[in-house]
Structures are given as C-alpha cells and as structure tokens.
C-alpha cells in the first residue's frame, strides 16, 4: 500500500516536471533556436527543430547596426546609474530608518510602502509635462530619475530590514572611538550588509533593464531608446525579419539571465522579499 502510494507520487512528480519543462522551456528554446536560422525556415511546416543552415548571421547584422548597438549602450548606462543611485540613496534612507527616531518616521515609512502600489501610468501623464518643463524630455537622465521612484522604495524597505538585523552595539563602538554616524554607516553597516545589497542590486538591475512604459513615452529619437523599446521598434523597421528579432531578444535578455544564473541565491532572495517575510 505504502509502496504503491510512493510510486504514484513519483509518477505525478515526473509528469509535472515534463509538462513544466515544455511550458517554461519550449518558448525559450524556440527563441534561441530561431535566432540561428535563416528567416525563411522560421514558419516552415513541419517546424525545423535544428536547422541545417545554422548560422550567426542574425547576430552579425545586429552588431553591424549602430542604432541597435546604441540601444544596448543606453540600456547599460541607464541601468548602471539607476542601480548605483538606488543603492546609495537607499542606504542613506535605510540607515536613518534603522538607527534614528524622528517625528514623522511612521508616516514616511507608510508612504514608502504604499508608493509601490502607485500605477506607473498614473505618474506618466504628469511626468510628460514635468520632464518637458525641466528640459529633460528625450534624455537618458529623464529615465534615470523616473526609474528611481520605482526602485527606491523597495531598496529602502529591504535595507532597513537588513540593517535592523545588525546589532546596534557595533555602531556604538564606532561612536566610542570618536567616529561619526557617517563612519558607522560606511565602515560597519554597509560592509556587513553586502549580501542584502547584492539582492537589491539584482532586483533593481532587472527592473531598470526591463522597464518599457517610461522609456517609450519619455524618449523620442532612436539614439535615446533603450533595449525593450528598441526591440519593439525593430518589429516595424525590419519588416518581420524574425531571426534578427529573436537574436536581438536573446542579446537583450542575456544580462539579466547571466546575473540570475551566477547570483541565483541573491536574486531569489531579492525577488521573494516582498511576499515572504524572514
């Protein structure tokens, strides 16, 4: 009886693993596979799983196209700035929340939690006139600034939680040695909180790299477009050259995928923190 139950349990697990592999893996396999095919083979019937004319032509075309290279440079630049600024500004705020008591603390904290529910599209309409008014329309700076609003709250909440786990006696020691709160933050708290910073950094990187709505509406010319908007622009410009669009998609997804594979543990910790406490 027990033996049979175990066998049926194993079979169910196996079936779910197979279905899951097809469900999650097939679209991704098809994307990569098609990026190495000639365009004519993509909608062939029956489908060609492994093309005899496997080649890197689609990738070569992208690397030869200065517009598309520019999308990547823009994305890297915006993402790097957003990650660094989010961490620096977020750490300062988290330090304040974790180590000080001040009037208005509860209210500000509640606002920061609630900000995460504000729909980006609600902010977009006033942003348009605001960004135009401060002459930042169609600049990467506009993207960096507006992305901070969505990435900062998460960083502050995560890092406050992280700092709270670090005993206060450590920064008291700095004070006894005559150090300021500034030294305590950078010499004691920040080095101890590196794992938390890596998680937050990953999550911020993913969100900034993948952002679409603000990038679409706040930039106008090709030299200011980021990868997510650029990929969609290709759809029109290349008149359905699917192999190139798939190659661009693969290249556009690589930075996040590589980070995910290397820093899986941190990535998952950052991803689940919103729903899972401790």
């Amino acid at each position: 009886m027990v033996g049979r139950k175990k066998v049926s349990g194993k079979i169910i697990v196996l079936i779910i693993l197979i279905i899951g592999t097809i469900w999650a893996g097939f679209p991704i396999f098809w994307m990569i596979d098609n990026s190495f095919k000639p365009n004519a083979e993509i909608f062939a019937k029956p489908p060609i799983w492994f093309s005899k004319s496997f080649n890197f032509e689609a990738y070569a075309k992208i690397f030869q196209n200065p517009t598309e290279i520019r999308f990547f440079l823009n994305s890297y630049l915006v993402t790097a700035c957003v990650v660094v600024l989010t961490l620096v500004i977020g750490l300062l705020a988290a330090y304040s929340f974790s180590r000080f008591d001040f009037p208005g603390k509860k209210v500000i904290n509640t606002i920061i939690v609630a900000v995460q529910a504000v729909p980006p599209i609600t902010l977009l309409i006033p942003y348009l006139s605001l960004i135009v008014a401060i002459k930042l329309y169609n600049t990467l700076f506009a993207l960096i600034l507006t992305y901070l609003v969505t990435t900062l709250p998460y960083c502050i909440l995560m890092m406050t939680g992280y700092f709270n786990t670090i005993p206060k006696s450590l920064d008291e020691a700095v004070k006894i040695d005559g150090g300021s709160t500034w030294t305590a933050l950078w010499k004691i708290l920040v080095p101890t909180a590196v794992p938390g910073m890596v998680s937050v950094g990953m999550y911020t990187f993913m969100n900034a790299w993948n952002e679409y709505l603000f990038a679409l509406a706040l930039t106008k010319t090709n030299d200011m477009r980021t990868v997510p908007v650029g990929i969609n622009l290709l759809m029109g410009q290349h008149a359905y050259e699917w192999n190139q669009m798939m190659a661009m998609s693969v290249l556009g997804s690589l930075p996040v995928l590589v980070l995910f594979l290397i820093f899986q543990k941190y990535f998952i910790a950052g991803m689940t923190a919103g729903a899972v406490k401790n």
Partner: protein
Amino acid sequence: MSNTRFKWDKKGRRRIGISYAYLAPTLILMVILLMVPIIMVIRYSFFDNVIVNKNPVFVGLQNYKTVLTDKKFWEAVGHTLYFVIVSIIAHMIIGMAFALVLNTRYLSSTTKGIFRVLFALPWMFTASVIAILWRMLLDPNGVLNFFIQALHLSKQQVLFLASRDVALRSVTLINIWSGYPFYMISILAGLQGVSTDIYEASALDGANSVQTFLHVTIPSIKPILISLIMLDFVWTLQQFALIWMTTGGGPVNATETVSTYIYKYAFTKYQYSIASTGAVILLIVCTIIGIFYVKRQIAEE
C-alpha cells in the same frame, strides 16, 4: 515602537537633523517625482484640455462623468477584471504545483536546483521580448498552430491575437506564462520555512497527502499566499507593456484594458484630461488595495 517623546533639547534636535539629512535625497525625489505628479494628475482630471491648451477651464466632475458613462471604459474594466482574475488563479495553481514538486523528497537537490532555474526563467524576460516571442509562437503559421492542426484540434488556423473571440484569452495566457515564477519561488521559500515536525505529526494522525496539504501546508503559508495575491492584483491591474505590444488593445478593443484605455487617450488622442481621469480612478483602486497590503505588512511586524 511607542510614540516616542522626542527630546527637543540641543542634542535631540541635532539627532533629528541628522536623521532628516540622511533621508533628504529620498524625500526630495519623492516630493518632486511622486507627490507633485499625483497632485498634478488629480488637478488635470478636473480641467478641460490640459497640456494641449495653455489655459484649461475648470469643469468639476465633468471628466469623471464622461469616463464613467463611457461604454468603452466599462468594457475595458471587464477585460481587465478577466485578465487579472484568470491570471491570478492560474499563477497560483501553476506556481503552487511547481513549488510542491520542487519541494518533494523524491528529487535530489541538484535536480531541484536545475528545475528551479528552468521554471523561473520566464520571469527574467522583459515585456517586449515576451511579446515578440509569443507573437511568433501564436502566429497563424506559427508552431502552436502547427501542433493544433497536427493533433486535429481545429481545422482552421487559430488567429490567437487577431480574432476578437480568442485575443483576450491569448493575452492572458502570455501573462500567465510570464508571471507564475514569482508565485513558485515565493511559495517554495514559504514551504521550506514550514518545519518538518508539523508534517510528521500530521502523518502520525493518519492524514493522507491531500488532507496534509489542505490542513497543514496551506494554513502555514497562508500569509504568503495573501501577500502574493495582493501584489499580483496590483501589478496585473497595471499591466500595459505586454498588451500594448501583442495586440495594442485590439482587435477592435477586444483586449482593451484600463491601462491601454488611459494610454490611448493620452498618447494617441492627446485628450490628457480624460486620460488623467482614468489614471486617477486606477490610482484610487490601487491605493485601496495598497492600504490593505500596508496594514497587513505592519500587522505582521
């Protein structure tokens, strides 16, 4: 934290000053890029022809009347609700199934690790990649249609994104694919936090696996499940990119959601007042859910 009585002496004032100095960059950003825009958008919703017209006229609740009596708005609300509710239910079922499988004792930890990465992958892609990938998969001549015809499920090509009858379901399917890993990973983290003692006690009581699941597993991860549903509700409600890049709200408004409705009014019809009104209504709904979420988070602390 009791409502601290702050020492307003010199030292106390200095400490409060320092704490605000550390918060200053955040506060400045939040005021300029959050408070001000929200006030602006609320103000826009009470005026006529904002942004386009230099001297807009105050019209009171006229825009709200226009939006709330617009048949297309309510259609968009209906599509959004379908999209959100079906996505949440499917995310929950798929995420739970995968998490349970990845938590069984039948698999070695290496196997679990590999499948955890594989199953989490869809979460990593940006909306435009997901949109283009699925447009290729769901193309009338695409690979999915090939299988449908090879298996004789339908005689004609299924126009997944171009037919009014199936487009909303197709878009929802794409959203399900891209969103379930968040549930899977969170539930898995929750399951790993449940102590094995409870399971052993339940097994001693002679409970079968279904009973254990319903009476032990679910209650112990209930807080996570509720948080997940609330977060997903807010996120899916705001989903714009995926719909915009697969169907653009079409064909003939069949996949128009509140987000695409607002976006179209703002950026293709340049009627910013109507768009702002829609945006404020969406903000109110999200804020209500947000308040519940904040209350829960604070209660847990």
